[in-house]
């Protein structure tokens, strides 16, 4: 994405020539976006096969971190084909009108000990809400691993309304979890 590259370039510039690495290349095959929902007291994990992520993170200057995760909701795997079909329908994600969900992090707050908090906006089914996503980072073999979760309340986005609105059956709380592997920015472009 052009703006992101520009942003990264600016960040790299700001960080100075011999500063710590800026991580911004997402290794897709080593990144995951999953979710955990609860039905009848049972926590169930599902995932998304298709999503795109743009992240810029400088461990030396975490406050400047930016991220955007866009999820292709049609790639959802809930664990059962019945449920996969169901959640694409109107009561859940209404894929025809809202094929993607998007998280845009605009600020990062360091909490110490490689723990951070990204604040941003989550958009699902055309509704945008403020969210706070705690995450941790770890450098491993030159790559930066980011693990975090975005707690959301599905009904705030109208996800699973109608008969499904009863939270005694399917809980309101859903965790969107991300595991991202980033490599260093391909050395300063232009």
């Amino acid at each position, binding site marked *: 994405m052009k703006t992101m590259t520009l942003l990264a370039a600016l960040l790299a510039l700001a960080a100075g020539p011999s500063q710590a690495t800026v991580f911004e290349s997402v290794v897709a095959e080593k990144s995951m976006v999953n979710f955990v929902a609860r039905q009848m007291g*049972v926590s169930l994990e599902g995932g998304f096969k298709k999503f795109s992520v743009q992240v810029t993170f400088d461990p030396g200057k975490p406050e400047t971190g930016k991220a955007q995760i866009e999820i292709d909701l049609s790639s959802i795997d809930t*664990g059962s084909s*019945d449920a996969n079909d*169901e959640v694409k329908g109107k009561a859940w994600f209404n894929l025809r009108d809202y094929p993607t969900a998007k998280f845009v992090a605009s600020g990062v707050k360091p909490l110490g000990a490689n723990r951070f908090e990204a604040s941003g906006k989550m958009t699902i089914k055309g509704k945008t809400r403020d969210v706070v996503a705690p995450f941790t980072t770890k450098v491993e073999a030159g790559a930066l691993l980011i693990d975090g979760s975005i707690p959301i309340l599905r009904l705030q986005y109208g996800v699973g309304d109608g*008969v*499904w609105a009863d939270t005694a059956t399917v809980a309101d709380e859903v965790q969107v979890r991300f595991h991202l592997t980033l490599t260093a920015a391909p050395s300063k472009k232009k």
Partner: protein
Amino acid sequence: MNQPTSYTRTAILLHWLTAAAILCAFPLGVYMHELQLSPRKLQLYSYHKWIGITVLLLVVVRLIWRSRHRPPPLPAGMPRCQQITAHGMHHGLYLLMLAVPLSGWLMSSAFGIPVVWFGVIPLPDLIGKDKQLGELLKEVHESLNYTLLLLVLLHAAAAIQHHIFERDGTLLRMLPFLKQEPKS
């Protein structure tokens, strides 16, 4: 030697609790799996699993109880082949009452859906997630259930037969509040 003439109250209670639980879980299972996905379906599946695990537990308790409290002997003068049939029948019932819920639990694990008993107590997954195995276990669960249904029907028929035709008090030994000796 002092032979008991009746089942203990505990054994009677456990027997009827198991019977009631099975009589709920079985039709529930038959009904629920044809339903379209809905909150109702998720609820019924959970109830079915909760009842099933309850049966498993009750049967384990029954087996322990039975190992410490001898059941009354079969009616005197019962032909040898009938005695063998009766014992075989009871063994088969116990076996199926364990196998049916276990196969359901295994199936649930294979489908990647843990069982949380009454929505409160999470049970461990018996096996890892494996959809194909899950489909197979579904068949196994179903076959075991219909076998159990057959045995339960035969069991009930035998009890009624003993009560109406043989009049030997076999049924009365298992009825609550009727612990007194049937007059002979």
